[in-house]
């Protein structure tokens, strides 16, 4: 036992030697900036940040560590993978966060339920300096900018493989083309998947008319029958890069990530329109350290930090300093910064009954083909069990005959 313990300890020591302490690197910020964050008096405080997974740079600049170093404020950093899960955690109680980063429709929902605190822009001087408020002026008009600062923006996009597709697709309807059977990847979340069908049908993606949703669901079912699409989220990277699929629907910045590993890929913005989205930094009610949270939002807009994040995430940034920076590698990307996009639509918060209806329809869309397989599997399992039982009984009877008679 002792030997085991000592072995484990030596292993741990060897492993910990690998963890090279953060070296005293060159200062990336100007003295003014350093002094500003030092003067905020956040030393010894804590903020709880709740962000999407893989949605902050930790390679070029370790953003969290730098913030902790400059302000002396500890960051508890945790991650979520969908707006809905973030919402349930936030509204479940027993926790309080200081920063959350929901998407557009979730910001609206949180606002309508009065779960956000208004921001004090005196504590976020970088907003005035670097935020592209011309382009995103509509947020000021509808009052959202009082509560949220955009972190990233993006659109959905149609990704195709030039090996299978000869000409640039112009319509979402190619995803209904039978010749690409088994080679189509669709979003595996109801809102984005329905949006594809709704764009193809020319509907509003925020319709509250149940009949519209029925039509869209039927259209998705038709697609299931015609091309047998696979519904994926992060697997889309591996699958598109492997070059075995013709089409995928995903988010624009992620196309740039994929094309780095598979140059055969191309993208298109279908003429029926695409969904534009944003993720924004907000302070939820119950925040224990609002000043710290505002300092964090301000810090995320520092040109150096915003650049590092933009290069890490590959989504479009609303930060003017990054867009003007010559080192920014994505500035020329037509996928990330498209010009003259037409017919774009944003997601808005839907009433609960519409959401419920959509989720039920989504189950139906995804379920119908699986059900056949499920029944077959269930049936064959029963057959196997019955056969095993019969063999068992026969054996038992034989044993009885041989030994008991």
């Amino acid at each position, binding site marked *: 036992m002792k030997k085991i313990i000592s072995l484990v300890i030596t292993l741990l020591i060897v492993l910990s030697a*690998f*963890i090279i302490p953060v070296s005293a690197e060159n200062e990336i910020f100007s003295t003014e900036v350093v002094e500003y964050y030092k003067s905020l008096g956040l030393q010894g405080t804590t903020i709880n940040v709740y962000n999407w997974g893989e949605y902050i740079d*930790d*390679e070029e600049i370790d953003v969290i*560590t730098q913030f902790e170093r400059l302000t002396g404020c500890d960051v508890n950093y945790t*991650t979520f993978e969908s707006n809905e899960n973030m919402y349930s955690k936030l509204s479940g109680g027993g926790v*309080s966060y200081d920063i959350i980063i929901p998407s557009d429709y979730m910001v609206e929902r949180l606002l309508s339920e009065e779960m956000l605190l208004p921001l004090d822009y005196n504590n976020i001087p970088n907003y005035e300096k670097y935020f592209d408020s011309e382009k995103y002026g509509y947020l000021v008009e509808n009052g959202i900018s009082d509560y949220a600062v955009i972190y990233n923006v993006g659109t959905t996009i149609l990704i195709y493989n030039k090996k299978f597709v000869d000409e640039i697709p112009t319509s979402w309807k190619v995803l209904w083309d039978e010749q690409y059977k088994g080679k189509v990847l669709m979003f595996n979340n109801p809102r984005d998947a329905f949006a594809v069908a709704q764009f193809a049908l020319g509907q509003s993606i925020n319709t509250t008319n149940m009949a519209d949703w029925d039509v869209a669901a039927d259209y998705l079912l038709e697609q299931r029958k015609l091309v047998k699409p696979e519904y994926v989220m992060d697997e889309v990277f591996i699958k598109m890069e492997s070059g075995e699929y013709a089409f995928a629907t995903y988010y624009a910045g992620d196309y740039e990530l994929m094309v780095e590993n598979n140059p055969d890929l191309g993208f298109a913005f279908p003429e029926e329109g695409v969904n534009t989205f944003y993720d924004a930094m907000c302070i939820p009610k119950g925040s224990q350290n609002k000043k710290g949270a505002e300092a964090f939002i301000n810090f995320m807009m520092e040109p150096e930090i915003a650049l590092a994040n933009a290069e890490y995430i590959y989504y479009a940034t609303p930060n003017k300093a990054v867009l003007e920076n010559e080192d920014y590698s994505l500035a020329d990307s037509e996928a990330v910064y498209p010009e003259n996009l037409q017919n774009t639509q944003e997601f808005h918060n839907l009433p609960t009954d519409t959401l419920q209806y959509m989720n039920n329809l989504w189950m139906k869309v995804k379920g119908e083909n699986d059900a056949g397989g499920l029944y077959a599997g269930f049936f064959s399992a029963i057959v196997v069990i019955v056969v095993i039982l019969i063999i068992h009984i026969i054996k038992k009877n034989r044993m009885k005959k041989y030994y008991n008679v």
Partner: protein
Amino acid sequence: MTKTSPLAKLYIALVFIFLYAPMVVMMVFSFNSSESTYIFEGFSLQWYERLFHDKVTMDALKNTIVLAITSAAIATILGTLAAVGLNSMKNKHIKSSVMTVTNIPMMNPEIVTGISMMLLFVFAGAMFSKRDVLGFGTLLVAHVTFQLPYVILSVLPKLKQTDNKIFEAAQDLGCHPLKAFFKVVFPAILPGIISGAIMAFTLSLDDFIISYFTNGPDFQTLPIHIFSMTKKRVKPDMYALSTLIFGAMFVLLILMNVAQSRSDKKQRSKGDK
């Protein structure tokens, strides 16, 4: 000795391939020099290097290990005590009903356990007007709860095997009951305790659902962290991490087996004398 038929050999080979092929693939690609997950472009340790520089992941790993060790230790002690108590119960009906009750957390779907735990903690927090109850403490309680039945189930059979008369004989010869327990009963049930502890440890290590509902902003475990990456790509440094964890588990299990067989040998040679 009977000869194994080639069919049986083939079957075993298939089973092992299905069990280990995914892990082998993951290990191979953790050494890939590019980010690609379908072409091996060359050997490199870059993902391991990146892994150790990834503060959030390393924090999550540290949290997971701390939680697994503490919760397994508590569950092992509580579970062993419970098993001893259950074993010495005289009334059969009470005994079986207590067993059923302790087994419920094991049978219960994890999501039910998780949500009910969360509700309980939030409710208790509201009662004592404590705002942010969810955190390490609640995770610890939740993990100990679902580990307990496994520990009890692995200790109880060992207790049944040991002859209670030896324990009584030790006391007859003037041994204090507590000392008699540690001298006589404890060594006999030690294998059960150890396997229970390992079970509890590994269960805690890979639990996702219950942790998901009971964790707080200052304590995120590794499974939750990895799951949150599913909108973006799961990076190869996660393969590196999984490879390391698998390796550590493998070494631990081999060491346990070696220790076990040695102590068995010792006992046998003692018995021979």
